[in-house]
């Protein structure tokens, strides 16, 4: 497995480009590892006031909080930095990861008593393809490619992968496109 994972390709997110079409959501369910469930999150930020939507994939943290708080050792990170969805035989459906993840990513599938989350379309990325969501995204809110490609396309933005939540700094594999020169995003 994973011999063909293209390490030079990275994931870039920019939710201000999102048009809320949910193509990513439909495509995510097509990912073979998800059993036709969508793992990506698209939601209105506050529909009464704005049409703004946000899109969230798993950021694949360097030191994933989800894996740390898991009582069943069900979440693992691999050599490519991909934080995998819960091991189906171990997960006990406690939702610790769901509530602790600072990006609000893991999903508790109540019916299956199982947590599921984005694994960056491992069925595709592990054979050198791009993740489904970033392939179909019509707005570039999700993009999968090299840093050089990104630099060329959006020279006035900088990929940032450091996020501040209170006194915690979380570094991630997935990048957020920020105004040029930014080094981090303080969320809370």
């Amino acid at each position: 497995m994973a011999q063909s994972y293209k390490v030079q390709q990275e994931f870039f997110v920019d939710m201000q480009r999102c048009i809320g079409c949910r193509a990513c959501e439909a495509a995510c369910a097509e990912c073979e590892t998800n059993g036709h469930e969508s793992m990506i999150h698209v939601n209105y930020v506050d529909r009464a006031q704005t049409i703004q939507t946000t899109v969230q994939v798993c950021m694949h943290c360097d030191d994933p909080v989800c894996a740390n708080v898991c009582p069943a050792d069900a979440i693992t990170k691999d050599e490519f930095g991909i934080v995998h969805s819960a091991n189906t035989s171990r997960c006990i459906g406690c939702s610790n990861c769901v509530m602790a993840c600072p990006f609000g990513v893991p999903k508790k599938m109540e019916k299956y008593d199982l947590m599921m989350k984005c694994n960056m379309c491992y069925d595709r990325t592990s054979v050198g393809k791009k993740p489904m969501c970033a392939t179909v995204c019509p707005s570039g809110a999700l993009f999968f490619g090299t840093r050089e490609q990104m630099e060329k396309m959006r020279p006035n933005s900088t990929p940032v992968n450091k996020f501040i939540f209170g006194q915690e700094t979380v570094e991630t594999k997935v990048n957020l496109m920020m105004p040029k020169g930014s080094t981090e995003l303080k969320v809370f």
Partner: protein
Amino acid sequence: MARLPIDAEEIIAKFGPSLHMPDREGLPGRDEPDTIVETHCCFCGMQCGIKLLAKNNKVVGFEPWMEFPFNEGRLCPKGVLRYMQNNHHDRLTTPILSKPGVGFEPVSWDQAMEKTILEIKRIQSQYGNDAFAMLSGVSLTNEKSYMVGKFARVALKTKNLDYNGRLCMVSAGAGNKKAFGLDRTSNNYTDLEKAEVIIVTGANVSETFPTLTHWIWRARDNGAKLIVVDPRVIPLARTADIHLDIRPGTDSALFGAILNYMVQHDMLDHDFINNYTSGFEAAKDAVKDYSLEWAEEITGTKKEKIEATAKLWGKASTSFLLHARGIEHHTKGVENVLSCINIVLASGRIGRPYCGYGTITGQGNGQGGREHGHKCDQLPGNRDIENPEHRKYISQVWGIDEKDMPGKGLSAYEIIEAIHRGEIKGLLSICFNPLISLPNNNYVREALEKLEFYAGIDFFLSETLRHANIVFPGSLHEEEEGTVTTAEGRVVRIRKAVNPPDNARPDTEILIEIAQRLGAGDKFPYKNSEEIFNELRVASKGGTADYYGITYEKIEKNMGVFWPCPDLDHPGTPRLWEDKKFKTPDGKAHFNAVEYHPSKDPVDDEYPVILTTGRVVSQYLSGSQTRRIGKLVQQFAQPLLEIHPTLAAQYGIQQDEEVIVTTKRGEAVFPANIVETIREDTVFIPYHWPGKKSANQLTSGHLDPISKIPEFKVSACKLTPTGNIAVVDKYSEAYKSS
């Protein structure tokens, strides 16, 4: 009489719409498909490239087609889930006959054909040939569109053929013909990439053409200023540099004022205007009183924003103006379009790289379909059915006597009116669901019920076809070879991935058999789609929409060819007007004098609120296909009444409260969605749903005098809250409302 044979609910139980949901395990065989077919999405005018995976004559999944230049793998949710329309339990797989009190019964092809021919002959001998009408649609390929046009005139011998493109971009077509003598967007969309200023007016790009967003965002990455004109804050407008939230129906006032501002401040390309255009003085005079203050009054938008727009547009060195149904669905749709063209021509920014203008065609083959086939006043190659030379040329291609070529017929809505009046007694429809897509559909229903005979060709039993006496099971997009022309004017190949299932047949085969049985078989000798296309090439030769130089092989090799392409060595024309030779009689681009006229259904004391309609991203047009795809249905499960909190407060309307919306045509109930992203004087309802949930129960049949497009975008309405709070979740059954 074409009435429902049994209750709608009983028909729905058998023929749907029902939801196709994916199995958790996925469709069997998608990991090892028999074939992977490079084709296109069957939905909007973008015609995004997509690969379909087929196994055992079923489409089992898709894969992004990264190499196709327009979308490079990008898709919208409809595109992603488009494969779910195949392999659907609602699919018609045998001809059916309507029996009052019993329902629809399967019959043999022979019986269905015989009955249909008998009725056509009876009606035509009793009431005349034109008493049998045909309605068609532009989800059909170029081949089918061309053939429908020929079929109606040569086999059915009726002048009354029209199509659902009448509800789409006919205003743009008419405006473009007036101004440029040719009806196509002037550039391919890659020209957006380095446009300095982009105006998008009446086009909810992010929901109706999501994949076009990429090119607009690319332009903004390169520094473009984006101006969005729309009564709602559509997703495209949220981050726009200027959002002009104009009152529905005031587009020509806005663009008139902008033209006037350009004149006043000499932001004109005099060289271009003097050398390559005509009619400027008249156009200028028509707007000379259209001050910013006046425009603010009419459009309800701050004059500062209008001025800022005029300045940006006036000073830009490259630009692109895009419009769609938002300005076209009006009784002055053509005027609105011309007012846009006027500011483009005044800027002189056309026929150069990154300088573009165009309508965004809505339907899958809205572009190709409107050039070659089934428009009541038109012949292939975008020729005029009333032009003697054009008639002569096509008659010769078709091998008929010019005297036998019918003249100009009635447009879609006029056909419905003629049925009402008893002038049209029989109807054959293909790929058209007027009971949802035409305005004032209670009136449409009454018309259908008056028909003496109604036959339809389709793959699902649409709401309209429930009224049919005979329905022939036709073919899906992925079941026949062909071509379509995208909104950019790019002719692309549609590939067959699977055969029609069971007893269903390809559309062309069905039409050919009817033609044969009507005695015109010799005029339809086609063995395959390519032969039809080759005849279309000849028929279009010398017309404005010239496809002669386009072959299947050439399309496949180049992933599409832009028309006009007059000979085999011609590379196609991605960008029009580089030679500044326009296709008008005088070879110049025409300014047109456009005065502002109010809409035909203005608000008053009794109906004080403006109702406008539109679409949502997860549904396509009348929803005949998309209301059967489970996940698309659940994405936006029922039509909601978008209303501003100020207006809601005025009526005491609560979030999710059911509100009765009443117009002069009728009333319907929708849950309120209270949002600040709409004008205070306007409410919005999306129109994809049927029956009691149909917004088109409320819209009016007022038509544009030139294009005959109905005025979907402006109706006066009143609102009555009911006090009931609706459950707004993904499980609504609005998709099959009767």
